[in-house]
């Protein structure tokens, strides 16, 4: 079955989740990845949302981070202060999903501004929950299309910490979380090496390494044991298209 870039990313992100993970979910593609995982290999995945929803079981595709379908039938709903303290800062969150306009060589993310902060060329939405998710979730995953402008060597503004200038700097900062574990794109998957630098570890079927390099803003290291990902299965695609996003809002 053929599939879109979005479907490819969602399926690969879903496969990174483990059963019983507590996931801080964003709307859109991360939400689909989590729901797909829950319907396949991770039935006990717990989805929590920055709006204060724990154990959501959305009956329809949520259209915003605070969609009422996340509440009806959820296990618990609390205040935003509680979700960021009792859950995230306290260390109860296994996985966070992040995205942004720029991701750099060490997995740092910019969702704030292109150009100078006080006189922005492009003013982006800002951190939202991302600054703390990146710091305190045990593992973070980044989903983003693979384009050169999205992968500069260094972000203009560091909204969310990856490994900063390398693992040592992150470690010295004394943050709880393990940092970004994987960047899932439409071309492949990058993972940090022992220094914290993102290295190409997987390519999707039919993708060439050169193609990934061309779309990355720094000389990209390639893992010695570079793998090719398994293509999305018919069942994964069926769940996405028929059950989770029948109108294809986030799948195209």
């Amino acid at each position: 079955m053929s599939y879109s870039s979005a479907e490819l990313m969602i399926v690969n992100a879903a496969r990174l989740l483990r059963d019983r993970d507590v996931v801080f979910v964003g709307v859109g593609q991360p939400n689909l990845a989590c729901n797909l995982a829950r319907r396949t290999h991770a039935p006990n995945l717990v989805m929590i949302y920055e709006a204060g929803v724990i154990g959501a079981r959305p009956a329809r595709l949520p259209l915003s981070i605070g969609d009422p379908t996340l509440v009806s039938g959820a296990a618990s709903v609390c205040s935003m202060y509680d979700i960021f303290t009792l859950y995230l800062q306290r260390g109860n969150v296994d996985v966070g999903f992040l995205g942004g306009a720029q991701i750099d060589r060490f997995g740092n993310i910019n969702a704030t501004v292109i150009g100078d902060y006080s006189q922005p060329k492009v003013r982006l939405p800002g951190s939202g929950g991302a600054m703390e998710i990146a710091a305190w979730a045990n593992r973070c995953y980044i989903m983003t299309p693979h384009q050169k402008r999205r992968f500069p060597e260094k972000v203009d503004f560091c909204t969310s910490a990856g490994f900063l200038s390398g693992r040592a700097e992150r470690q010295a900062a004394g943050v709880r979380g393990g940092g970004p574990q994987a960047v899932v794109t439409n071309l492949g998957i990058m993972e940090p090496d022992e220094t914290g630098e993102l290295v190409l570890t997987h390519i999707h079927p039919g993708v060439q390494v050169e193609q990934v390099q061309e779309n990355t803003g720094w000389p990209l290291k390639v893992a010695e044991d570079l793998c090719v990902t398994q293509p999305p299965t018919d069942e994964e695609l069926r769940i996405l298209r028929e059950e989770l996003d029948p109108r294809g809002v986030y799948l195209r």
Partner: protein
Amino acid sequence: MSKLCSLTEAIQQYVHDGDTIYAAGFTHLIPFAAGHEIIRQGRRDLVLARATPDLIYEQMVAAGCARKVIFSYMGNPGVGSLRIMRAEMEAGRLEWEEYSHFGMISRLQAGAAGLPFIPMQPTATRDLENANPLYRRVTDPYTGQDVIVLPPLRPDVAIIHVQRADVNGNAHIWGILGEQKEAAFAAEHVIVTAEEIVSEDIIRSDPNRTMIPDLIVDAVCHVPYCSHPSYTQGYYDRDNEFYLQWDKITASREETQRWLEEWVYGVKDRAEYVEKLGPETLARLQVPERLSAPVNYGAY
């Protein structure tokens, strides 16, 4: 003591030029009707504080009410960017003060709790901390480590939409709670808008559900469909079509002004706005009932 009044009166009495306003609600219970009333009354130089400015603050910015925004995520939720706010900021015509969600909500929590400041664990990145001088560091006396702190946020007025309230201002809220309680307690004045005004007996049948107590409330306004185009859990759904439409409207300043003329200046109050929305839109936003299982408090 009844504090029931019209939203027009409440805004007249409690919202003044130059005030810091917190129109609360994280995607839920957004008091759009109050934002529109502030626009109609021509308030100026407001400081608009809100984790997510959403369409409500963009409309107020477009109408010229605001001098500054305090925020943590500026987007059209689920759709894209807020074109006008973004353009105003890029053009240097709108001041801003920026936090992460946690920083923003922590400031409110400190304001609500009467804390002198509030500490947070470090996040490793210092760019936002460097960009906003209200972020400070203190030394943890137990570990010697640096700790990030923020000062309390104390808005002049909080506007809190709720599902049901009594005339005194005791209010039940359910669904996403966002920062409703913290904003109300942090503010000097509180305006409550409610989908329903109910008897005190209903409120007092379930005191654990009362997030806002009357003793901090200044005005109670009965405003059905206050949150449209956003939603109120159990009352109506989000009008997603409008959120998509707004993205197109705001592509042009003229179009935006035309929309304000028609839907804000062109109506007297929310009741007229709702009438103008019409029965088809309202029908589209209805939701089937799903009731909570009751609990027994006991007649002690």
